[in-house]
């Protein structure tokens, strides 16, 4: 297992601590010795296939479905305790608010549940971009707008820990960017954020650390750069040769020719610069080149498949 190269401090100071958390459903191990932490101001992505245990883990953190063994501490308190619930906000997967209520009425309910003044509702809806729709019934909202209602309720009362289960599903690219901007703001105020996703492409540079869960086990816990280095996947270089020079270029580089002008070669990340020097040495025979690092999906595949072997 990989560890983030982050300065170690007292682990009890972390907003969320998981130690050897296990959960079985009638013989099926949904979570196996899950351990990681989320510190103040950190944004951590929890990745995994459907059924990898993301939602089970989140329910255990929220105290909705207690873990069988191991330790979970939310701001130092037991999951599901009143002290923990006062400081945690969540957004469950596929939450569908009552269609008969307006966005404002729905947020007023959640403000009351946190003991906050209901007049904050408009401000919250404005913040997630639902200001103009506050008076409309949720039944008339699009999927993205409903997801924003869910985000608005999670923002109530500046929580110390946010648990978001696939929060960006249904959001268009612009809304997704706005969503991450709000998360950045919260993290800046010291909120710890754990969000799940089934695609690495969705979270890419938006999170500080990535935890990959496969079959209930943590198979990676690192920054994106760290994951990239640990995976050691080859970088592809595509060279476009001058017409007629493709064979000559391919021979010089000991690589395969794809068609009349394109030459493909792969190399390890460490050899990349050396190969590029070789290519530029060919001078006018080379018209253009593209360096394609392993994609996020390739890296994710690498880790989740490794666990299954």
């Amino acid at each position, binding site marked *: 297992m990989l560890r983030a190269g982050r300065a170690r401090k007292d682990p009890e100071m972390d907003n969320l601590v998981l130690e050897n958390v296990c959960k079985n459903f009638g013989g099926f191990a949904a979570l196996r010795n899950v351990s990681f932490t989320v510190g103040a101001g950190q944004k951590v992505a929890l990745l995994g296939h459907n059924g990898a245990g993301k939602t089970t883990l989140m329910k255990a953190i*929220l105290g909705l479905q207690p873990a069988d063994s191991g330790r979970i501490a939310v701001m130092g308190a037991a999951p599901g305790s009143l002290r923990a*619930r006062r400081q945690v906000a*969540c957004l469950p997967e596929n939450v*569908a608010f*009552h269609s008969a209520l307006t966005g404002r009425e729905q947020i007023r*309910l959640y403000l*009351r*549940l946190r003991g906050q003044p209901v007049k904050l509702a408009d401000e919250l809806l404005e913040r997630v971009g639902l200001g103009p729709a506050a008076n409309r019934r949720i039944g008339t909202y699009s999927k993205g707008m409903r997801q924003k209602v869910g985000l608005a309720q999670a923002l109530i009362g500046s929580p110390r820990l946010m648990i978001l289960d696939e929060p960006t599903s249904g959001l268009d690219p612009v809304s997704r960017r706005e969503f991450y901007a709000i998360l950045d703001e919260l993290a800046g105020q010291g909120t710890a954020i754990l969000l799940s996703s089934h695609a690495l492409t969705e979270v890419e540079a938006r999170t500080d650390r990535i935890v990959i869960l496969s079959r209930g086990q943590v198979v990676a816990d690192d920054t994106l750069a760290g994951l990239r280095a640990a995976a050691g996947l080859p970088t592809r270089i595509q060279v476009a040769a001058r017409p007629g020079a493709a064979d000559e270029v391919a021979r010089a580089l000991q690589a395969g020719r794809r068609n009349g002008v394109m030459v493909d070669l792969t190399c390890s990340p460490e050899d990349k610069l050396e190969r590029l020097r070789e290519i530029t040495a060919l001078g006018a025979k080379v018209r253009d080149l593209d360096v394609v690092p392993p994609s996020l999906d390739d890296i994710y595949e690498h880790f989740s498949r490794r666990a299954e072997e």
Partner: protein
Amino acid sequence: MNGVIGYADAEFRIALRNRWILILTVTMALFALVLTLAGSGPTGTLGADQLSVTVASLTGLAVYLVPLMALLVSFDAVAGEVERGTLALTLAYPVSRWSVLLGKFMAHVGILALALLVGYGVAAVTAFALDEGAGRGLVALGRLYWSSVLLGAGFVGLGYLASGLSRRPATAAGLVIGLWLVAIVLYDLGLLAAIVADDGGTFTERLFPWLLIGNPADAFRLFNLAASEATAAASGVAGAANAIMPAQALASILVWPLFAFGLAAWRFRRVVP
């Protein structure tokens, strides 16, 4: 306390926009109107005022409609939130489960009280228009009103129980319709069949009265008919009504809402969102 107020407010708004409640309120008002107008004939011969006669007719109507309204407004309360995923969200908030259920209970009983006010109000206004002496029946109407609200509260609690026992709202809906059929229709038929088979034995003497007031709907009917002689005479079931003390029927009406809500709260504590 925050949960109680929050849910009472939100659920009251939802119930106000619930088509079922609207349809049943209009039905109730129409029935009240028809019963009052149709009952305007025999008042002279019975010596009872117009409103008292209407109350007797309304009692028979309320036994069917009030539990139905209560069950239709309550069946979605737990199963609906489980299915929509909002229960998991609510339970992650710093509120207790019983306060969530109590908030819903207050809203749902409140909307029933409002619907009944409209229905019975139409009957009262019509009765006063037909008979200047209708004021004598106001006490009976008031008694019918608050006992109807209590009857409804009992069935709201039972609706929550059915909802808490189901994973999906469709299952809960089926369960409450079955409950309504059994409690309102089949229960009385069963008792009748038992009396006929027993032919005046110990069952009829000892068990029957208790089984009758054990059912909130029967207790409601008995209480309203026995409490007013005029209505008892008008409805012709004075015999059955007199066999049981109105006080015991009243106790049954009062205890059922608490008992049903307690059962529902007990079940709700075990619901995993």
